């Protein structure tokens, strides 16, 4: 029982990282940009989430507002990195897959460099501590699973319906989808394709930065150069899995985080199990299997995904 409740509680909390990152990636892809650099942006975000509280109060307990400041700085820098990626793939129209790999290496390398020189070795921080909602958290089982998290978690969950609303119900969301589906048609209707794509990259980058900072502040409570460990790539895969729909992506994030939490919990609760490497593999294998059996959904994606738009080119 303990095992199940623990796993579910942690799933609810940790799902935020993947959820927010892949929600951001969804904004990118809806606008036709395949941003594989998500991993790198998350890495920088994760580092900044650690750096701000650490540089201000050291290893001690940081007051809440400093942690929030860390989140904000990570979000802003994420947006800036998203724009940098935009310069490469929108303005220069570079192939997006390979540019994404560059972005990933740049981000991970940058975070690692600054981490080594500003912080040094692995340091743990207190991060944002859990907050038990009075009354509600006293409900047996459900109370622990749903109502013992910190405010950031609830804020992040709130972003799911917001993302859905923005992408499907606002004029900007419509423009984003138009730009990702048929940029030429959007262009002839007077939509500034370049601008919308840049905006969506900023939004996506901001969310990736936020997700990274969440990972250090609320989940791992420490940083090392490999902390993201493929989560950025899983986030990209989740967008395919969730068929570019916020609610499905949300469910996918829950499923994958459950798989990931389950394997760590098995390692904790069943220490005599010797072959833990195979457990660690599971989430990654799950991604491949899911992508392989999801081939129909490739056609549901934005039709201009990964294609640069050149206004001057004749078709």
């Amino acid at each position, binding site marked *: 029982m303990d095992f199940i409740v623990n796993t579910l509680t942690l799933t609810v909390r940790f799902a935020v990282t993947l959820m927010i990152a892949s929600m951001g990636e969804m904004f990118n892809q809806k606008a036709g940009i395949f941003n594989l650099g998500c991993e790198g942006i998350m890495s920088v975000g994760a580092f900044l989430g650690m750096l701000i509280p650490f540089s201000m109060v050291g290893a001690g307990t940081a007051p809440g507002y400093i942690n929030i400041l860390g989140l904000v700085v990570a979000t802003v820098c994420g947006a800036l990195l998203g724009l940098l990626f935009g310069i490469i793939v929108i303005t220069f129209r570079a192939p997006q897959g390979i*540019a994404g*790999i560059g972005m990933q*290496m740049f981000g991970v390398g940058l975070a690692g460099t600054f981490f080594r020189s500003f912080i040094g070795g692995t340091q743990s921080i207190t991060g944002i501590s859990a907050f038990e909602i009075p009354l509600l958290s006293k409900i047996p089982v459900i109370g622990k699973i749903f109502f013992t998290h910190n405010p950031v978690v609830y804020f992040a969950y709130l972003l799911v319906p917001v993302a859905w609303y923005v992408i499907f119900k606002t004029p900007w969301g419509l423009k984003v989808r138009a730009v990702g589906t048929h940029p030429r048609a959007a262009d002839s209707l007077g939509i500034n394709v370049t601008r919308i794509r840049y905006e969506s990259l900023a939004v996506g980058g901001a969310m990736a930065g936020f997700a990274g900072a969440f990972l250090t502040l609320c989940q791992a409570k420490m940083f090392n150069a490999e902390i993201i460990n493929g989560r950025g790539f899983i986030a990209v895969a989740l967008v395919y899995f969730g068929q570019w729909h916020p609610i499905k992506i949300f469910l996918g994030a829950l499923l994958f985080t459950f798989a990931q939490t389950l394997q760590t919990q098995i390692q904790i609760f069943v220490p005599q199990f010797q072959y833990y*490497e195979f457990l660690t593999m599971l989430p990654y294998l799950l991604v491949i299997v899911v992508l392989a059996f999801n081939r129909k959904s*490739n056609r549901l994606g934005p039709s201009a995904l990964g294609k640069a738009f050149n206004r001057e080119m004749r078709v």
Partner: protein
Amino acid sequence: MNNYKLIYKISVIIVAVLIALLVGAIIILAVGDDVFKTYWIIISMPFKNMRSFSEVLIRMIPLLIVALGISVSSRCGIINIGAEGQMYMGIIASTIVATNCQGLPKFIVVPLCILAGAVAGGLYGFIPGWLKAKLEVSELLSTVMLNYVAAQFFAFCIRVPLLDPNEKSGTPMSRRIAENATLSKLFRGMSLHQGIFLAIILVVVIYILMFKTTWGYKMRAAGASSRAARYGGINVSKYLIISMVISGACAGMAGAVELMGVQSRAVAGMTSGYGFSGVVVALFGALHPFWIVPASFFFGILLFSQVNLQILTSVPPNLVKALQGLIILIIVAVQMVISNPYSIERFRKRFFSKAKTSRKEA
């Protein structure tokens, strides 16, 4: 006259290099070290003496082999970023062969080990190729995921089945491979090993394969325009898979060479990021085997500088990874600028229209 095109290309590249150096300088300044000193260490240390030069060369060997493989798949339109995982698989296979072939003569064991690495890497490259060709799974995602799977599998292998029984400290590592499975050193007291011959042979083989055979032609056609290739009767998915198998086999061989020439045993982290750097090298070498040679030498210098930076400066070695990412970003952007006919035309009008007329008058 193609003259202005060449000058255009060169000047774009120079601007790109300057941008890369500038961003690198900003990072080094932010870290709080002397920019020129750091760059000087990166450039000058490899040429200090023969020993450090051979250190560069042994880093160049796996880079070159991996990059050759990646160039094959990239020419076929599939980006293999799974070289890291394929290397791990190659190392595992070649460790198994090397530790089980005691007593056999060297000229049998060494090729056998390399072959084992190639087969394992090739099979591991087959998976994403097949997934891409048959199930339309993006190779970018599948290869990355397979990297993590392979890394875990490798960790398992050196911890349980291949663990060195004589190792008391508990560090997961395989047994030391026997002398008959190692690539011998070329010179006394230097780390350079025979693997460099394999690398040179592979350069020629890959060149012939890609540019002088029908296979290579078909692969390049499939990469240039898969629809046109299909219309021309080329079985695109077949060549996608073949290119990924070749790519994986190269990565696996690189792993085997690294095992037999440098480490002598399978230990954690022995791919040292060659798989990812290989992508950068392949791009930097314009996906052409002959250009990949100097490119891999350059990145050998960069990877070797990680060691020196750690000793001589306060710049963390992670800087090199950031620089590599930066170089990718700049290369892909530069390629688009170079191949853009509008900007070439603008460049010609700006700088060459006068020169042309004056030549006519003369």
